[in-house]
């Protein structure tokens, strides 16, 4: 296979680096610097895919990111495969594998083509009108067929080997687009070395439209030389960052702009360490948008055949890639810019005919230049169709008479065609910035109107098309000026919504949105059916909803709709421009936030010991907590039974470091505690602890914990593990905004202290040898007291508290000593067979005692009284957070759920936590539920299962027999007090 359509010289490809890419398995020789599209075209391949709905053969239409048709499956090797890549932006490298999509069995022979024949039925919105009968068929027959037919390529199925990175950046000026306007803006903006300037462009190299403009000159030098000099200047400035292959895809509030940088996709073997893509979040002082303009296709019958391309794209392939897209080319146009393409193609050796809708008298110097160059020009001509199936073979054109009536058709044979319906400024980012668009009827386009953010548009994205003017405009946007002399730009044009066609022409498909197969007729139908808002037309026909988001099609759709409604385009308005400007990989958004970095895994100072001792862990918020410590092949149940027994018979040791801890300091500390907690704190003596309950203002239990008074002005408060951050935030909020007069400071000390709970009747004996400066006997150090001193030579705050109902201590030591002290205590406890236990055993132990866990017994709808804890509500206190809500009518009403214990009839049955409770299991559905199980365990100590539950009026139901759901029915359970063991609390004082 030869690259028959590669020109012998010219272009920006690197002829010293020949490469081979594959297309549907076939070898396609190319050069470094090619895109997939230019490589294919160099080999004469236009037909590269099938359309979405009708499976029509499709070729390459454009040369940039607006491409609607040429979507390929791209495999870069090593599981780097994904669908729907625009061939026009995929940079070629040796070994790159391309495949066409959406056909079966093959590209050239596709069964789906039948849809094209049935096109008369598959009009816009057809599926809303059918597939309803018989109803059952929808799920079993219709929908599966619809689903299979839909979608373009195949989603990736292999794990992604690539890494993605992110960066926040700040710039005084962000310039988007490195065409002449953007370059000029960056040059001016960066003159001040204190201004950080970022210049990004989605293309592989800066230059924009100038990359394929080989005929124009700026200040007497070729455009390429101008670009090169300008980029060298910018490169030399330390305050400038140039980002090629970087698309600005989202413009958010407060000048926050998101860029997607593609770092390795163009490399055959990415360097190790390099991320594939990077998300840049730029916060810019000013944003200059210099994003250029998109050429509009023409709407005429069968305008979608492979080989029919945008005129400017033909020019690009010839000049930038040295590829002749065809030898016999017809260019249909309604404006002047296409003549540049015609002249350049002619110069490259093609035979070229221009078919211009305009009258000869409306044409300017472009006509003279083209004729002079040997281009045949037919003015006052329309194009009404095309021939060819898998490749265009001719355009059907006709002359218009003086009244605009269409004359006799004639076929101009060709192997490639161009079309140009004028230009549409790329106002996407401007619109995303919430700027208002203004319709410019001279340009027949929307251009940026008033800005809402610190933003300026420059160059052809605001309708300035003349080369010298774009440069001046870019400079002006950056607050300077730059007057250059440049070759003239052909800019005049005459808008046409749809090319004039003979009346009574058979129903035809004249495509507006190529990818979604939306035709001019679909838009007409939508209007006839009452879908007159552009937003309705969009959604009914799906125009503009494909992967190109209508970059080339939206203006034609608008124009057609305006025509149908006999109104003007501004009255129709546009659809909303949304991010991303072009599709962006999920990986770019997710960045490094995966695996270990998906969310911080917080670990305690004793974590490594637990790992070394075989602990299984559970997630509690961000924390990893030791769940249980299986010995050899113990199941969880066996381990928990052993651990809980050990605590009740001798001693256990537990890592409680994750408990939230807050130091409340200041003269008003007690008053503050009074206001935050339901219970009273003023009278708590120094050296004593108290259990406290905290509500939100709505009266529901929010958190709980033990707080100790270390001095008249200092409380050491503990919170639940999960609640720590929100409790501190809650306290700070009240302190700063409601009670700024209180003399209190709050400091999180959660992580300052490792907490080792030693529980069981041997607890005191275990720690005694390690402590010299604290008297541990019951009288000197009673239950619910706190002391400071040393353990194993380490300073500690020693709490005598218990969440197990056993004699217990919680040893707080500075975190870096946590593991060493743990080991010392553990060593000291060996003689009592001290057993490390995890959170599961802790849960069982506390449930045996009926102690609640916030988040388990409570769910944000539970009051202190519901828990049987109304004793903790300081009735005498004038106020505390949540107090007023406790007397709302529904909160004081009877029929609330109250905490009780449950005993199952079957001693070994462990009820499901979350199981629902009914009084009568024989009711009909819907049944009346009167409660649910909040905690449920096998208690090895009691020798039976136990459960806690919230039951309607539960405290009045003692000994009542209720029925609890099980996976396959109901189990009987009896309501009991929620304390299963040692109700007198004797063990606490062992």
């Amino acid at each position, binding site marked *: 296979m030869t690259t028959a359509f590669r020109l012998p010289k010219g272009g920006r490809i690197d002829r010293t680096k020949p490469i081979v890419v594959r297309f549907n398995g076939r070898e396609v020789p190319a050069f470094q610097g090619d895109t997939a599209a230019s490589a294919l075209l160099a080999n004469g391949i236009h037909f590269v895919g099938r359309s979405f709905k009708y499976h029509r053969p499709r070729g390459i239409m454009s040369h940039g990111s607006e491409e609607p048709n040429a979507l390929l499956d791209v495999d870069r090797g090593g599981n780097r495969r994904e669908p729907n890549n625009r061939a026009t932006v995929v940079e070629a490298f040796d070994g790159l594998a391309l495949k066409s999509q959406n056909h079966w069995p093959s590209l050239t022979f596709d069964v789906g083509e039948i849809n094209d024949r049935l096109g008369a039925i598959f009009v816009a919105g057809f599926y809303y009108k059918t597939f309803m009968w018989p109803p059952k068929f929808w799920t079993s027959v219709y929908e599966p067929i619809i689903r299979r037919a839909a979608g373009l390529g195949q989603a990736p199925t292999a794990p992604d080997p690539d890494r993605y990175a992110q960066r926040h950046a700040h710039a005084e000026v962000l310039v988007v687009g490195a065409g002449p306007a953007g370059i000029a803006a960056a040059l001016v903006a960066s003159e001040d070395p204190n201004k950080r300037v970022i210049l990004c462009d989605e293309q592989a190299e800066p230059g924009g439209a100038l990359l394929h403009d080989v005929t124009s000159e700026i200040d007497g030098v070729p455009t390429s030389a101008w670009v090169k000099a300008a980029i060298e200047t910018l490169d030399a400035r330390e305050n400038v960052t140039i980002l090629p292959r970087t698309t600005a895809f989202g413009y958010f509030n407060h000048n926050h702009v998101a860029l997607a940088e593609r770092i390795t996709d163009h490399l055959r073997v990415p360097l190790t360490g390099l991320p594939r893509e990077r998300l840049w979040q730029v916060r810019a002082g000013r944003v200059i948008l210099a994003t250029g303009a998109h050429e509009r296709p023409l709407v005429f019958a069968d305008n979608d055949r492979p080989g029919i391309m945008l005129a400017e794209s033909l020019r690009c392939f010839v000049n930038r890639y040295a590829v002749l897209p065809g030898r016999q080319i017809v260019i249909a146009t309604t404006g002047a810019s296409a003549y540049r393409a015609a002249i350049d193609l002619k110069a490259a050796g093609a035979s070229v005919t221009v078919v211009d809708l305009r009258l000869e008298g409306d044409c300017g110097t472009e006509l003279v230049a083209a004729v002079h160059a040997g281009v045949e020009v037919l003015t006052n001509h329309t194009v009404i169709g095309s021939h060819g199936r898998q490749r265009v073979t001719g355009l059907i054109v006709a002359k218009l008479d003086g009244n605009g009536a269409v004359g006799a058709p004639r076929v101009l044979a060709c192997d490639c065609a161009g079309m140009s319906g004028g230009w549409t400024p790329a106002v996407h980012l401007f619109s995303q910035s919430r700027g208002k668009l203004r319709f410019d009827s001279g340009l027949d386009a929307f251009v940026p109107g008033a800005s809402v953010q610190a933003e300026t548009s420059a160059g052809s994205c605001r309708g300035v098309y003349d080369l010298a003017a774009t440069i001046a405009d870019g400079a002006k946007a950056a607050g300077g000026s730059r007057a250059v002399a440049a070759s003239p730009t052909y800019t005049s044009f005459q808008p046409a919504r749809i090319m004039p066609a003979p009346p009574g022409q058979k129903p035809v498909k004249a495509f507006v949105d190529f990818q979604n197969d939306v035709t001019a007729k679909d838009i007409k139908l939508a209007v006839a059916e009452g879908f007159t808002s552009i937003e309705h037309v969009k959604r009914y026909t799906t125009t503009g909803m494909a992967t190109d988001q209508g970059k080339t099609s939206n203006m034609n759709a608008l124009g057609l709709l305006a025509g149908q409604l006999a109104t003007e385009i501004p009255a129709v308005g546009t659809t909303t421009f949304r991010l991303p400007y072009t599709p962006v990989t999920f990986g770019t958004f997710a960045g490094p936030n995966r695996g270990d970095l998906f969310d911080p895994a917080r670990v305690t100072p004793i974590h490594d010991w637990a790992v070394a001792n075989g602990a299984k862990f559970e997630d509690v918020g961000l924390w990893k907590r030791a769940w249980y410590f299986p010995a050899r092949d113990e199941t969880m149940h066996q381990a928990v039974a052993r651990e809980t027994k050990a605590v009740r018979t001798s001693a256990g040791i537990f890592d409680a470091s994750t408990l939230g801890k807050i130091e409340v300091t200041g003269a008003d500390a007690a008053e503050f505690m009074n206001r935050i907690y339901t219970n009273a704190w003023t009278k708590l003596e120094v050296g004593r602890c108290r259990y406290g309950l905290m509500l939100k203002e709505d009266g529901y239990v929010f958190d709980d914990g033990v707080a100790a008074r270390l001095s008249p002005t200092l409380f050491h408060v503990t919170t639940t593990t999960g609640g720590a951050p929100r409790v501190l935030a809650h306290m700070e909020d009240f302190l700063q905004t409601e009670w700024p007069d209180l003399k209190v400071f709050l400091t999180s000390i959660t992580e300052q202290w490792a907490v080792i709970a030693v529980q069981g009747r041997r607890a005191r004996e275990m720690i005694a040898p390690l402590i010299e400066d604290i008297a541990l006997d019951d009288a000197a150090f009673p239950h619910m007291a706190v002391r400071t001193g040393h353990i194993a030579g380490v*300073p500690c705050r020693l709490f005598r508290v218990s969440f197990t109902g056993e004699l217990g201590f919680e040893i707080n030591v500075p975190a870096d000593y946590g593991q060493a002290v743990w080991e010392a205590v553990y060593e000291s406890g060996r003689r009592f067979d001290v057993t490390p236990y995890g959170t599961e055993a802790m849960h069982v132990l506390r449930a045996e005692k009926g102690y609640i866990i916030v988040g388990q017994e409570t769910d944000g709808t539970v009051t202190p009284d519901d828990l049987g804890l109304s004793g903790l509500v300081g009735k005498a206190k004038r106020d505390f957070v949540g107090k007023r809500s406790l007397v709302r009518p529904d909160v004081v009403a009877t029929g609330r759920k109250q905490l009780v214990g449950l005993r199952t009839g079957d001693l070994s049955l462990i009820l499901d936590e979350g199981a629902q409770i009914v009084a009568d299991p024989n009711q009909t559905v819907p049944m009346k539920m009167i409660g649910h199980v909040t905690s449920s365990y096998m208690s090895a100590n009691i020798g039976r299962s136990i459960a806690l539950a919230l039951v309607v009026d539960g405290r009045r139901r003692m000994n009542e027999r209720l029925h609890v759901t099980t996976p396959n029915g109901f189990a009987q359970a009896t309501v009991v007090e929620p304390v299963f063991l040692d109700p007198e609390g004797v063990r606490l004082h062992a």
Partner: protein
Amino acid sequence: MLENRSIMRREGILDQVAMPAEPSSVALRTLPPEARFVLRLGAGDATRNGSIAGLSLALPINRFGADASRLATRLGPDEWLLIGPDADAETMHADAARALAGTHHALVDISHRNVGMELSGRAAAVILNAGCPLDLGDRQFPPGSATRTLLGKAEVVLFRLADVPDRLGVAVPHYRIECWRSFARYVHGYLAGAAAEYAAVRN
């Protein structure tokens, strides 16, 4: 309230973390145990007190002052973070407590709550910016700046220390990062991950 110091060696949470092979454009290292205190004090009281434990509190918010071994950072209108050598803990505490006696304040030992790291090198700022939304420009965040902020999903206190010479003797930015102990492995991993790219190519 400060408890007396122990004779035991402090075990840092990053003690076991393997250092990445040191690339030339960036160096990431963990810091030894240090003494740290949160000081809360009304702005007026701070002005009146001038300097405490040898450290001046008269700092703009989000700036720090340092002498050879100690450092005081003002993190908010009434909040300072004091850092010094582990061995100075008791004297720092005692000095401060003495100076503040009778004034409404909080002086809380958080030596073990935080973990410190340092990052230096030409690429240090962009590595931090991989997860930190701050503007780290030389004018916006010059040496002497310090603030609480975010790195990925963790909260950190970020200090811009004085520039240091790199291997080639060129002055490069130097940062200190403090985070809570349990986040340290995440923060370290995040930075090491972001630095990988610079280790690979950009030196």
